[in-house]
């Protein structure tokens, strides 16, 4: 791969934003974007797990290639992600009980966040090296957090608006997400 690290970061966070262009991690995007504060915390937690999962996926991929068992890829990735989330949970609980209480239920739910498994699969498909994977994970996490915070800001404003009954709830959120996704397409020019 000849891509510079900076390009990988911009690509993952803005041009091909995981949430708005690939539709990965839509569930937390719709579920946790009600309040600005929880949204930014969730973004932080997901970015953290993404970086660890991406690093481990790089190691696993190398191992599976040497023992010639690529069909185990999916199973081992998901097991590693699930156990990483468990480890992170225990680690945070020990180091900072305050943060642990603040994140609450969101931590275990990260396991079924498709953005993380998607990240691991994409970086394998693209053949990124160790440093490139790290930057890719960082960019994807930043993009996820950015989308979540934007959405939360919009939804906090909308709480005060007068909305017809039919459009309340998911339908309205999806419409806003669609407009956000269109506006993110403007970043496509950055790729050059």
């Amino acid at each position, binding site marked *: 791969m000849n891509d510079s690290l900076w390009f990988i970061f911009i690509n993952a966070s803005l041009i091909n934003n995981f949430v708005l262009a690939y*539709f990965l991690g*839509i*569930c937390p995007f719709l579920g946790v974007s009600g309040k600005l504060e929880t949204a930014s915390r969730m973004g932080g937690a997901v970015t953290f797990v993404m970086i660890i999962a991406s690093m481990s996926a790089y190691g696993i991929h190398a191992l599976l290639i040497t023992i010639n068992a690529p069909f185990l890829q999916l199973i081992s990735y998901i*097991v590693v992600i699930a156990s990483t989330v468990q480890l992170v949970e225990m680690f945070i609980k020990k180091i900072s009980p305050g943060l642990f209480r603040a994140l609450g239920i969101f931590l275990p739910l990260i396991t079924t966040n498709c953005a993380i498994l998607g990240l691991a*699969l994409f970086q394998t498909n693209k053949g990124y090296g160790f440093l490139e994977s790290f930057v890719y994970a960082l960019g994807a996490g930043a993009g996820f957090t950015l989308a979540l915070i934007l959405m939360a800001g919009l939804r906090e404003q909308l709480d005060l608006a007068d909305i017809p009954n039919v459009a309340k709830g998911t339908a309205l959120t999806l419409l806003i997400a669609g407009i956000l996704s269109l506006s993110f*397409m403007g970043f496509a020019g950055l790729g050059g």
Partner: protein
Amino acid sequence: MEIQTTEKKKGGFFESLQNGPATDEFIKGLWRENPVFVQVLGMCPTLAVTNSAENALAMGLATLFVLIMSNLLVSSLRNFIPKQVRIATYILIIATCVTVADYAIQAYSLDLHKALGAFIALIVVNCLILGRAEAFASKNTVSKSFWDALGMGLGFTFALLCLGVVREIFGTGTLFGFPVLPGSFQSWIIMILPGGGLFTLAIWLLVFNGAKERKAKKARAL
């Protein structure tokens, strides 16, 4: 002797189909508890691969297969799986089924595999499948779980087709690759872009909400 037992089984099977819980489990997934439109589960594949009707159908059928396999396995093993590690076990079962589906699609049609990309592998984290395993298959018999999976899977496929058909007709002017709109039609590029998926789903939800509202109003008027 053997024939008799199979006949007996068959009778019981059809009986349960006609007047009872099996049909109910089957129907509820199709409409009343439709995974996409009512429960809003499994959004990632719903939005990402529905830019053409063919992709939507393939994705729906792959999910249906994984859902049936995982529901059958989970419900038949439900008495052996320790409670503490049940989620991890379910995910392992699902990941195995998905790997099988992934390789099967690759062998059957490489083009389709390329079009769906990583999203076949991402069936593992489709909340719908884990949700059914945890909420239904882990508590019910094998045959009930099968009907539940079939109904939910078909309901999911139906929802994907709803989106895929609309997006393909307006986005490219075709349906399953055959042109359906006159040549003078200027295709709406937005429909095959990511934003179009979100808008289409939002509009379907608005339509269903509107229908529900009207029904409720009628019931109140009566």
